[in-house]
């Protein structure tokens, strides 16, 4: 079936099987490997995309159901090759180790801060509870989010 997806600001019309998840279509049809399969059950967050600005598990969304919604993956954050300030914060604060959870963390953090600009560390911790990381222990991810929240607040 033909489905109109809207990915990172661009319309992408694709042929999908009914049983293909958005995760599978993004990766296998569109070659967008920003999203990863970590668990297949919506627990780990490695497959996070923003759907109309809100985080969802792309492994639990049929591609057919995602038609005409705005889908954002991590590559939608870059601005003509310049890193988004949150991405820069992740680099500066050493918030990236193996990197597998990183795209999901970035999108989830950004979506949360969009709606809660003054959020403190405790609120940020709660915001990323649904994104599992096995490498960092979360501390430097929170350092990066906190730093970005402070800077974004100033601007």
């Amino acid at each position, binding site marked *: 079936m033909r489905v109109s997806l809207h990915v990172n600001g661009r319309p992408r019309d694709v042929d999908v099987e009914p*049983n293909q998840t958005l995760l599978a279509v993004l*990766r*296998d049809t569109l*070659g967008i*490997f*920003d999203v*990863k*399969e*970590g*668990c*297949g*059950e919506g*627990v*780990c967050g*490695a497959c996070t995309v923003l759907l109309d600005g809100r985080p969802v598990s792309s492994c639990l969304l049929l591609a057919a159901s995602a038609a005409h919604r705005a889908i954002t*993956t*991590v*590559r939608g*954050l*870059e601005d003509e090759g310049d*890193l988004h300030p949150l*991405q820069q914060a*992740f*680099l*500066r*604060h*050493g918030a*990236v*180790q*193996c*990197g*597998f*959870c*990183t*795209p999901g963390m*970035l999108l989830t953090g950004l979506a949360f801060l969009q709606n809660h600009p003054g959020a403190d560390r405790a609120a940020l*911790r*709660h915001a*990323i*509870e*649904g*994104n*599992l*990381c*096995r*490498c*960092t*222990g*979360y*501390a*430097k*991810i*929170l350092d990066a989010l906190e730093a970005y929240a402070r800077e974004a607040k100033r601007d």
Partner: protein
Amino acid sequence: MTDGVKLEREMRLVGRPVIRHDARDKVVAATAYAGDWAMPGMLHAVVVRSPYPSARIRAIDTKRAAAMPGVATVVAASDVPHNTLWTDVPGQTTEVGPLRARLHVLAEDRIRHQGEPIALIAAETEQQAREAAEAVAVDYEVLAGVFDPAAALEPGAPAVHDQGNLLAHWRVRRGDVAAGFARADVVVEGEYRTQHVDSAYLEPESGVAWVDSDGVITIRVSTQVIEHFRDVAEVLGVPQNRVRVIGTYLGGGFGGKEDVTVEVYLGLLAWRTKRPVRMVWTRQESLLARAKRHPYRMRYRTAALRTGEIVAQEIELLADSGGYAYLSALVLLYSTVTAAGPYRMPAASVDAKVAYTNNPPTSAMRGFGAMQVVFGYESQMDRLARALGLSPLAVRRVNALRRGDALPVGQVIETHVALPELIERSWSALGEPTPPRAPHVKVGRGIACNLQPYGRIVWLHDWSSAWVGFEMDGSLVVRSGVPDVGGGQASSLCQIAAEILGVPLEGVSVHIADSALTPLAGTTTASRQLYMSGNAVLKASRELREQLLAAAARILDAGPAALEMADGAVRASDGRSLPLVELLRGCARMGVPRSHLGVYHAPAGEPVDLEKGSGKIFPDYTFGCHAAEVEVDTQTGRVTVLKLAAAHDVGRAINPQSVEGQIQGGAVQGMGYALMEEVVLEDGINVTTSFASYLIPSAGDVPDVEALVVESGEGLGPFGARGIGEPPIAPPAAAVANAIEDATGARVTQLPLTPERVARALGLVEGD
């Protein structure tokens, strides 16, 4: 191995929290992990596995599966040229008895654990492969199984393997233990149990294989060991130079990707079909099939004087190897050597056994046997403290190893032991005690020290190699076989090379983990890579520098000793300088190589008979101390860690931010082990095969870990570094258990410290 000159002056890159070269790609999701790879005509492969833990295969019928739509091939044991895999402490060649373990690629007639692989299917789509997998008909005769290592060692227990269920038995005897117990003022005893856990990396096992235009079977895979190309070659019966393993940047390893995972299957299928083949495990498959951490049953008897000084310790360990040996004997060896902890031990006896069962196999995992025993020896230290009315800190200070002391196996510690400083720093980092937030909540504190070996056992004659070379324009290339598991393994090498050769970090390109194109560096395991490959790159860089400065000396007509490489040039002490590009052109003219292959050989030793002998086992150890403050809800048993301070002597922090990250991440993994992670088995059947039932900590479950980095400068790695990959995972469980006792008086001796277990220890729930 330290660079004497450098230590005297400020280093430009080493010791700085530089941004890792791989981090940028990761924040824009440009890193191509092993599963992020597609090739034209690529097939998709799945594994067919046994649902039974103990069975005989009467017949396998793959005909129906092979005929299904899209199926390219079905492989069973009879289709595998050499169906045996040896676990031989990868990369090494010295035969070491029970350390060489045998495994089938695909089951032949006997099933020894749930999930044992039986057949492989490759098809045009993953969906078709899975449908075909469900059509493979296996006629099983279900057999009795044994699911407890103690039961497995009883006479009459079902034999998991023909040679009996005892896989390995290590013994240490030192001093006169009986005399020690006789003269002791107090003896404390404890029995402790730890659980099976899973590596639970976010990236499941994955890879793609193809046969390249030279007929080389190429396997691009998430692995900690690229030397597995030899295993693949052996299984296929092809020369080793016809197999190439390209190790990708891993989405986590933690020891779970140390044994072969998908490499052999991919090699087999690509070789048979002559098409590219991809295999990516689902999370459930990974949780089901991957080797786990050994659960331990430990019995400790500790005898001490009134002063707190330990005079003797008697330790029994029993581990569960599951259906196959894998690295179990080696893991047990690590436990045996470290079982008494980082303490002086005039007399000690250790009896460590590992038995086969029909449980899932156990093998390497971060900490590798030196982790489980921390729960034993550190719980004992607190018991001792309480029995004597001493503080937990004092009893550890009294007994802490010092340089020149020996471990029970007789190894003399030759480097500085920073334990007193680590104890003091971690404890004071807890700050003011947190007042209980409600009447039903109690707050307590506990500490735990540990020692973790880094570098391989010395009689394995470990080595690593690295190639460093300049391009004509002055940009630098580093080639090393090191797999990068996410801990900055590759980026540290760049820092070291750039430091020595005086170039900016951005001027370095690093190529890693390609068995055909990068010099072999050995496994990313055993906290060995910074030590081994860091030293290899250091050596290669220094030797290259020597070569180049000799050439520069000729060009500048100066003494080489008066020259140094800095700021992308050669600088003479008299102020003259030679731009790097000119030097390199000069080298080309003079026939001086602009590159160098360095090989670092770890100081080697000969095998030690643990029971009779005495000697060096590991090159060195990393010491640590964690302090935890916890809150216990005395009505529900729920434990919350409020603070965790983790102090380690890392020798030298090549990249302090990376070191902190390792400590924080390891300690959180340790808190998962302490509080919530458990593979639950029911007669060998794994009932925790999803992330909804196998729980790893989220950000809401753990506090920020305060990483305290002590740099004694006495490690054997580059610039005095010690290994830090594994040490931080081990202390939290004991620190938390000790804190629970401090808060409530209840000692919990089994992991994980779930609310129910704590509730039982508090007497809130009765019976079984």
